[in-house]
């Protein structure tokens, strides 16, 4: 009974954060709501007793990605008062498509019988086993992940670095 309430609470928090992130006009608020949504999601992970994933999710998304988003918003003048419509010219198409996708997903979930079953009794994922699997079965993905992250790091820096020599392109 308790985790029923807990699940609903977390789910509602996450959904609210997500909707707010998509709806709000003020970009910083959106970013913060997004961070809230990510935190809610981390909570749901914990509820699904996947602590490691939850903490990792919290650490990565709330700790790092949120800050990145916020910084980007500041750098791209997003923080100023937004002029014009928030939605793109043909935003109704987007909503239509999203609705269609939702219908498909929910339809498929509802129609497949196997999904209503209850979870196994206890499922814990001790860090010990995670460590072992990381080092044995998933060693290759781990190495490539290291490489990928380094590449992303360097790439990000290079792309976003302000060209030292070139004059600032004239304001359009």
């Amino acid at each position, binding site marked *: 009974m308790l985790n029923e309430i807990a699940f609903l609470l977390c789910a509602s928090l996450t959904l609210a954060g997500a909707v707010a992130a998509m709806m709000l006009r*003020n970009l*910083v*608020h959106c970013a*913060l709501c997004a*961070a809230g949504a990510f*935190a809610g999601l*981390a909570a749901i992970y914990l509820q699904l007793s996947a*602590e*490691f994933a939850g*903490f*990792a999710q*919290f*650490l990565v998304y*709330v*700790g*790092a990605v*949120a*800050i990145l988003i*916020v910084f980007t918003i*500041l750098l791209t003048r997003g*923080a100023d008062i937004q002029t014009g419509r928030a939605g793109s010219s043909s935003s109704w198409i987007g909503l239509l498509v999203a609705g269609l996708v939702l219908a498909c997903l929910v339809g498929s979930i509802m129609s497949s019988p196997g999904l209503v079953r209850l979870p196994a009794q206890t499922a*814990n994922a*001790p*860090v*010990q086993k995670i460590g072992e699997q990381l080092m044995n079965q998933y060693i290759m993905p781990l190495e490539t992940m290291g490489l990928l992250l380094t590449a992303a790091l360097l790439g990000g820096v290079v792309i976003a670095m302000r060209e030292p020599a070139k004059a600032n392109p004239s304001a359009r």
Partner: protein
Amino acid sequence: MNGLDQIFVGTGHWIAGLFPVYVQPLISAALEIAIMMAVFGGCFALTSVVERKLLGRMQNRYGPNRVGPFGLLQPLADGIKMLTKEDIVPFSADKTVHFLAPLALSVPIWLAFAVLPFGRNMSAIDLDAGILFFFAIGSASELAVFMAGWSSQNKYSLVGAMRAIAQMISYEVPLVLSTVPVLMLAGSLSLNEIVAAQGTYTLGGLARWNVFTPWGLAGLLLFLIAATAESNRSPFDLPEGESEIIAGFLTEYSGFKYALFFLSEYLGLFAITGLAVTLFLGGWHAPFRWLEWVPSWLWFAGKFCALIFLFVWIRATLPRLRLDQLLNFSWRFLVPLSLINILVAVAWYWSGSWKSPVALPVRWVLCAALVALPYHWLAQSLRGTLPPPRKYTYAE
């Protein structure tokens, strides 16, 4: 010995027993939370005064001694002042975010204490990935700092927030990396496991604390430096650099919100020192076998106070660093050094199997050398970033 040691645990169980079973977990949890908040709230008040008295003493002056005996009631006075002061919110500020900022900062910090083992089986939650939880929570503070800085729509606060975030991100990396050797050799992320790993005593009765190993010592130093930076204190307190940007991201806060910020800052400090104690100073273990009789939580508290004194000491002596020096120091010195510390830990672990009696000193010298040489080179490379020595010209 067991009784005194487990006194708190026992009373806790006893109180929980008063209530019906299905409610008991809730009650015990609430109890633990209450105790923790009470202890560390009091500790906050105490340290704010002690710190100022120590600073005074170190600067050859008295600290606050007017309020209560030896100024011990000064925090009470500050608290009342904080609470009664008018809580001014700038007009153009982003009301909601401005209001939420202190909350977003302090809540995660309180959560951080859940993991720390204050005494023998005196830790709120024994998480399997305790350290990860601790750092996850720690990383949430940057967002809160940003909220504070940005929402007050004030140039100084924004600049301060940016500086704080840059500093915290930069020093989070060495903080985490310096704990890696401890995790590797303890073989687990759970803090109790780590403390247990340091529980055994060498022949001479000396405890096998991590600090008594070359990588442990280096790790502790790195950890402490990173910790001070992480909690925006002393040499790294650029965000609140009073002289330049008033109070950094706290400029627009007053009254209770400021108090909250002040509280969460100190709580951050306490959490970090608690972690340092558990990781490097053997948690609640006694330094010597024959001192086992002293209750575990007392050991924890002692070490805790020692580190706090160290922080205050540092704050009193070291001047503030410039932002680029600060960042360079982190990225070009601390990060490489902590990576090398991991190598040292590997070397120590690999050479652990040497049987010869002289093995210990040889290993010590070897590993110490392994740390010292890169330390010297990195320092050299850092030297390039320092400004040339100032030449003073005196009027003839």
